[in-house]
């Protein structure tokens, strides 16, 4: 296990180095002078020069890469072209909102998807199984932004019972939750269906296993057999899928934030792309990438912890 963890960490380290190098070089791809592009043709030359200097653009390319790494290690991702605020502080303000959105939809997906899958598996062919089969397929194929637009149309425009846009303030939890509800549901919709399907399939397989029959033969209560003995084994293969999918979830969160004009990393990156605010785009994408890598690392370890068989093999 330790050996495996070490190998995995080394691999992750190289992935992060690669991503950062790529991001440091990204500005080279912008045609013309990126600073001039943002500040406009009329900006005074001294200002342009000083911004170029702050961004190390007056240095040779390898030095640019070096400074990006060195500063990032100290938590310095540059400054916003416009407000001159540090990118790190902008990201720190946005990040909690994205994290809350992602976690809320994941929780929603787990709380609804898993029981739905278990129920469908324990009552195969029943009416709920058939309804969920149709519903889940439509849910799986619905992208978060379509779900988001539909929810907006129904709850905010037609019935006007939910706020259409905005974030609310964390100091007013009730209002914050109200603003969170629709985006979280929009993001979770695909996952409810996906999880339900995954759990159903692996649950049906596990319920056929000899150890389930053996547990029943010992007179162990059905609820214990299904929710303890079968579910743990059925969930193991889904953990890996959910882990990989968390990355997709982060991506979806960006779309959803834009649709609902909700504060967060996605909104931050989106706005900065509009204004060609390069340091923020670079910093934002880096943080999203780091999150992605961290989540994958974490799922891998969780997966190894839950399944004792893998623990030994690796």
């Amino acid at each position, binding site marked *: 296990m330790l050996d495996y963890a070490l190998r995995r960490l080394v691999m992750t380290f190289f992935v992060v180095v690669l991503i950062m190098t790529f991001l440091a070089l990204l500005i080279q791809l912008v045609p013309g002078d990126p600073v001039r592009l943002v500040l406009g043709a009329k900006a005074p030359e001294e200002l342009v020069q000083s911004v170029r200097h702050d961004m190390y653009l007056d240095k040779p390319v390898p030095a640019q890469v070096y400074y990006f790494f060195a500063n990032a290690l100290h938590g310095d991702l540059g400054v916003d072209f416009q407000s001159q605020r540090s990118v790190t502080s902008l990201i720190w303000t946005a990040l909690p909102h994205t994290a809350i959105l992602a976690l809320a939809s994941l929780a929603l997906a787990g709380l609804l998807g898993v029981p739905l899958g278990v129920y469908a598996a324990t009552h195969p062919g029943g009416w709920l199984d058939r309804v969920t089969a149709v519903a889940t397929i439509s849910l799986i194929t619905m992208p978060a932004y379509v779900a988001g637009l539909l929810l907006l149309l129904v709850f905010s425009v037609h019935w006007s019972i939910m706020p259409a846009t905005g974030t609310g303030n964390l100091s007013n939890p009730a209002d914050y939750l109200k603003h969170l509800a629709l985006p979280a549901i929009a993001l979770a919709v695909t996952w409810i269906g996906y999880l339900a399907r995954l759990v159903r399939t692996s649950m049906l397989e596990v319920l056929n296993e000899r150890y389930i029959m053996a547990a029943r033969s010992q*007179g162990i209560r059905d609820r214990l057999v299904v929710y303890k003995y079968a579910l743990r084994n059925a969930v193991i293969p889904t953990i890996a899928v959910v882990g990989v999918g968390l990355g997709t979830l982060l991506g979806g969160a960006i779309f959803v934030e834009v649709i609902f004009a909700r504060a967060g990393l996605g909104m931050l990156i989106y706005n900065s792309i509009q204004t060609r605010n390069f340091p923020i785009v670079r910093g934002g994408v880096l943080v999203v990438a780091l999150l992605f890598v961290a989540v994958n690392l974490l799922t891998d370890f969780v997966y190894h912890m839950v399944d*004792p068989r893998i623990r030994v093999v690796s």
Partner: protein
Amino acid sequence: MSDPLLTVAGLEVVYHTDAGTLPALSDVCFEVREGQIVGVVGESGCGKSTLGAALLRLLSPNGEIVGGRVMFAGRDLASLSSGELRKVRGRGIATVFQDPLTSLNPTFTVGQQMIDAERAHGQGRESKDVLRRRAIDALTRVGIPDAARRIRNHPHEFSGGMRQRIMIAIALLHEPSLLIADEATSALDVTLEAQILKLLKEINASHGTAILLISHNLGVIAEVCERVVVMYAGRAVEEGDVYAIFDRPLHPYTRALLAAVPSPQHRGTTLAAIPGRVPSLLALPPGCKYADRCAHAVAVCFAREPASLARGGLRVRCFLYDDSLPAADKPRADWAKAPGRA
């Protein structure tokens, strides 16, 4: 004599498969009395495990009991609610399944699984420590060394033989009145097999636990069983006292099985190869299922299925013993041309 502990009457089981409906058991009848050890023997695929699973209504989801009755301790198991059936499982009738490698849940420790099995029939008052103690004792009894430490291990950390013994320990936790042991010793080497058989006999003697011992090993059956059911293609073709059947087998199939065993006490013998093949359950011939391989077969054997006939203390399913047939139509008991001992 009192009522039997277990009465199986006319049991019919099918499996629904993509290739069609597969009749796995057909009109199976036998009894197990309190404290008796009854063997079930037959070639692979004849329905032994299906029989064991059907008794507790634990067939795989595509299996279905389509006829017959299973009476246990005076109650028809089909009439029980699922809650009542659960109480019979593990306490009235305990089962050790054929496949010891997959009978334990891979994601929980052996101790956790044993404690759950104990709690299934407990009042919920015993502390975890008491339950763990009892589990350790149960493991020690079936010969698991260092049980107090091993109880914290996961199933994959045990050998196949060890897992088999753990399953037996779990089955014996509640001192059931009937233990179904499906090939309980087949994963073990000869020494361990002897130990487990000794253990089963001890349990039988000390607690009066009746045992339904499923095996393809005639030696094992001869050693521990009082009665035996010989199965062929989902039918009980012969049933009776072990000594009587080993001495004077009636059914041609039983005779062929015994042909390879030098003496009833011979140990470690598996079923001999009998010329010909077991018919596919999906395309069973209309008559006697053994007719294709039987040296005595005559026209009537191919035309219809023989009924199960009482003959002395035995039951046998063969036209050789059907006195209602005109002598001219009857197969002849000319043992010289059949495989087997005269």
